[in-house]
């Protein structure tokens, strides 16, 4: 094993060039070039192989990406032990022999382009460099550790399939293929990220997905100028239209069945290599109220539950603001009995009700945040400290009135029922905005807030699809599945042809 510690300034410059400008390097195909490029990287292995004592070739591969056993068994071993090779005197013969298939490897490539060699090297290929001929053979020896398919962690499902996407792109696409055995399933791949060179795959079903949508998505993805794609938002922020909104515009899923059913609805899925969450676009507000489990339960039950979800979202959004409005502006709207109990709980609390509401609302969010960040070994402490000590003490110390606790807690719990957590957070932000508005001028302020929210949704579009679809701007079509989950029997009628017609 050889490592080169001496790094020329020239090499350094070339390296930065590659990163910054995505430029092709102009280096001769020899082992020194590789040594220069990977000077300080100890995981890059350079092996000198002596064939027939006179002939020396260099083998380069990245330890961990390439499968060492394969390299040993199928490249090194034949080269040094096989009679065909031990008799070779010059490189010309060697090339002929390798081309003749004596190194029996599935995909062997011959190239004299260093760029290609480097690119493939970083994907786990072993590079066999011939010094004089200035060419290299590339052996597909990819084989790295990857997580096996496991049960989804975030989206639990009662009756649905239990497999979840993993970090490896190829495994994920294989999962899709297994579920949808049709040549219409198209899986395109692009490379995004100047440094990370991440594979991003765009999948859709040809004939169902809108061609224009696919085209514009492809263009948007190609335009992305970024160093890395290690996080989903890097892609998300580039492909959405409205940047200034707390509301999610891309649906994430780690379940292949959900992904596939989205494809069948004519939507487009994006899988990023290295991220076990996939993105689905375009989305509209209804998508955030649906779960995959909806489709594995009785349709009447699911329809009712979906209706309740919308109602609860409205409760989460409005109730604290409404409480503030009626207790500080419109006393005539509180029933008498309730008014007296509100007064009795408010006695001695120093803050106005809206400040209590905001404080408590933030406190609930604090509990969530603390629960998410705390070490799992002491995780139980959050609920203990938060609910028991702080909550109880705050009420008994007259910091916060029980009435407000009830209202804000009801809103918070209603908020947690929203299936999509990104959406739930956005609703929470608007809840606070509404509280602020209604603390200024009561019900009127609240309604102004609601109008602003409706406007905010109305002007949002995801890849040209209205965010409020199918409640608005769809001409009444395509709205069968919004609140009421229709039977699959009915759905079948508007099979694939119908779908593609709608999406055109």
């Amino acid at each position: 094993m050889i490592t080169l510690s001496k790094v020329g300034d020239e090499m350094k410059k070339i390296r930065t060039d590659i990163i910054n400008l995505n430029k092709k390097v102009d280096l001769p195909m020899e082992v020194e070039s590789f040594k220069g490029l990977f000077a300080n990287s100890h995981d890059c292995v350079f092996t000198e192989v002596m064939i027939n004592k006179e002939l020396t070739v260099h083998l380069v591969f990245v330890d961990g990406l390439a499968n060492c056993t394969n390299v040993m068994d199928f490249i090194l071993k034949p080269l040094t032990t096989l009679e065909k090779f031990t008799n070779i005197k010059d490189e010309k013969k060697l090339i002929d022999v390798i081309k003749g298939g004596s190194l029996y490897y599935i995909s062997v490539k011959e190239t004299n382009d260093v760029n290609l060699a480097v690119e493939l090297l970083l994907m786990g290929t072993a590079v066999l460099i011939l010094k004089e001929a200035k060419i290299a053979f590339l052996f597909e020896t990819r084989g790295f550790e990857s997580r096996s398919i496991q049960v989804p962690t975030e989206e639990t499902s009662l009756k649905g399939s239990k497999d979840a996407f993993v970090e490896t792109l190829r495994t994920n696409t294989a999962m899709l293929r297994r579920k949808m055995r049709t040549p219409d399933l198209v899986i395109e791949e692009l490379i995004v990220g100047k440094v990370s060179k991440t594979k991003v795959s765009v999948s859709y079903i040809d004939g169902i997905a809108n061609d224009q949508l696919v085209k514009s998505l492809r263009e948007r993805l190609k335009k992305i100028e970024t160093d890395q794609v290690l996080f989903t938002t890097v892609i998300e922020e580039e492909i959405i239209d409205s940047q200034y909104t707390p509301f999610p515009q891309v649906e994430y899923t780690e379940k292949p069945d959900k992904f596939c059913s989205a494809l069948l609805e004519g939507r487009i899925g994006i899988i990023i290599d290295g991220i076990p969450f996939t993105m689905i676009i375009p989305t509209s507000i209804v998508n955030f109220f649906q779960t995959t489990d909806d489709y594995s339960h009785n349709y009447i039950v699911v329809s009712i539950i979906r209706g309740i979800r919308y109602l609860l979202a409205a409760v989460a959004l409005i109730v604290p603001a409404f409480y503030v409005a009626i207790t500080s502006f419109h006393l005539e709207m509180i029933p008498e009995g309730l008014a007296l109990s509100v007064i009795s709980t408010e006695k001695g609390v120093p803050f106005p009700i809206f400040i209590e509401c905001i404080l408590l609302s933030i406190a609930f969010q604090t509990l969530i945040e603390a629960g998410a960040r705390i070490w799992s070994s002491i995780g139980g402490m959050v609920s203990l400290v938060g609910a028991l000590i702080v909550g109880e003490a705050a009420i008994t110390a007259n910091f916060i009135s029980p009435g407000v606790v009830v209202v804000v807690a009801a809103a918070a719990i209603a908020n947690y029922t929203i299936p999509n957590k990104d959406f739930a957070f956005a609703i929470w932000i608007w809840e606070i905005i509404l509280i602020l508005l209604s603390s200024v001028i009561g019900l009127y302020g609240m309604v102004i807030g609601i109008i602003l929210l409706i406007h905010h949704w109305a002007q949002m579009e995801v890849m040209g699809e209205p965010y409020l679809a199918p409640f608005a701007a769809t001409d009444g079509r395509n709205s069968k599945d919004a609140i009421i989950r229709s039977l699959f029997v009915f759905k079948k009628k508007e099979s694939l042809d119908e779908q593609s017609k709608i999406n055109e």
Partner: protein
Amino acid sequence: MRRTLIITLILFTLYISAGLETMIGGRKSITDAFYVTTVGLDKAKDKIKLTIVTQSLGPEEETEYTKKQDKYFVTEGKTIFEANRFFTTFMDNKIFWGHVDYILISESLVKNGLDTYLDFFMRDHETRLIAELFIVKEYSAEESIKLVIDSGEDITNTLHVLKEDVGKLSVSGCVPVYEAFSTITDENCGSNVPLLQIIEDEKEETDSTDAKEASVAEDNPKSKRLVLDGYALLDPESSELVGFLTGNDARGFNFAINKIKSGVIVVEDPEGEDVTLEIIKSKTKIIPKFNGDKLEVTFKTKLSTNIAEIDGSTNLFTDENIELLIKQQNEMVKKEVKNAIDFALKHNIDIFPISKVVERKFPVKWDKIKDDWRKIFTEITFNVEVDSQIDRTYSIKEPVLSREDG
């Protein structure tokens, strides 16, 4: 980015202006409000005396439960609104009219007409039109409120119980403000308002013995108490007080206007012993008929009762005896309804109101006669028909006193 900026700007300006109390004076904290639940209106020389009862929480005790406590305040003013404003001079809390449940008006005030006082309750945006109206006989509204509160009871609750139990005897009724208003505005029909009376326990009256009406502590023999008995009837045009219908006459009126829920009729068996019947269902139809120009009105009452108590020993459950009971019962009801009709004819006010029935039945003819309805009303011939039946008895069939062989 520009859009977000604009939104933030709007929100910020709105929020800043929250501090400007001069601009937005609408905010009132709930803890500062005093909820008025009962209002009393009285006459004091040429002014109006306004009594308000507010519910607030009593002094905190060691237990968690804090009892609701009534407090009352009195002011005077030329109008109700003025009197209301005077409260602000000595009360630290804001008076809030949104939860007024009962309005008590003294008899002396209604003598000049009720309509002038209803306006305040109709106009104010806080008050609800479902508040119930009561007229207090003889005493002032303040006195009756004082009476209840001084005895340690809750006036609103007392009135509530009285109102809830009004159907047990059916000698009075409930009239919310909006209903009173719509009858007062109708020039042809008289309005009725339930009557609150204060009676002293010593001179007990026969028709108000129901134990639930007693609202004063029982061990105080000389105490006065509040009963809901009868109606005060108002003139259709001026809405001035014309007279009272009390006791069984009021029940007759209730029979006529279909407001009977339950009640007690005591009749005699063949031997002269009392048999008590309980009214379980009553329905009256007012049927107007034109004989030429002359109007004939029939009150057709359908009644069913239960036998609730038999004091004698005769077996009543024979066809003959039941007939006898029914006959007596018919006569009693007929008499009561007739009394109510007599009252109406005497004062010449259409209290039932028959005008509405005629309007519904003969809309075309009504159009011609509506202007001299008051004259026509005096000339109406009234018929009262009662068709009653005794439905069932309770757990036992034979009277307790009956022997095997008579």
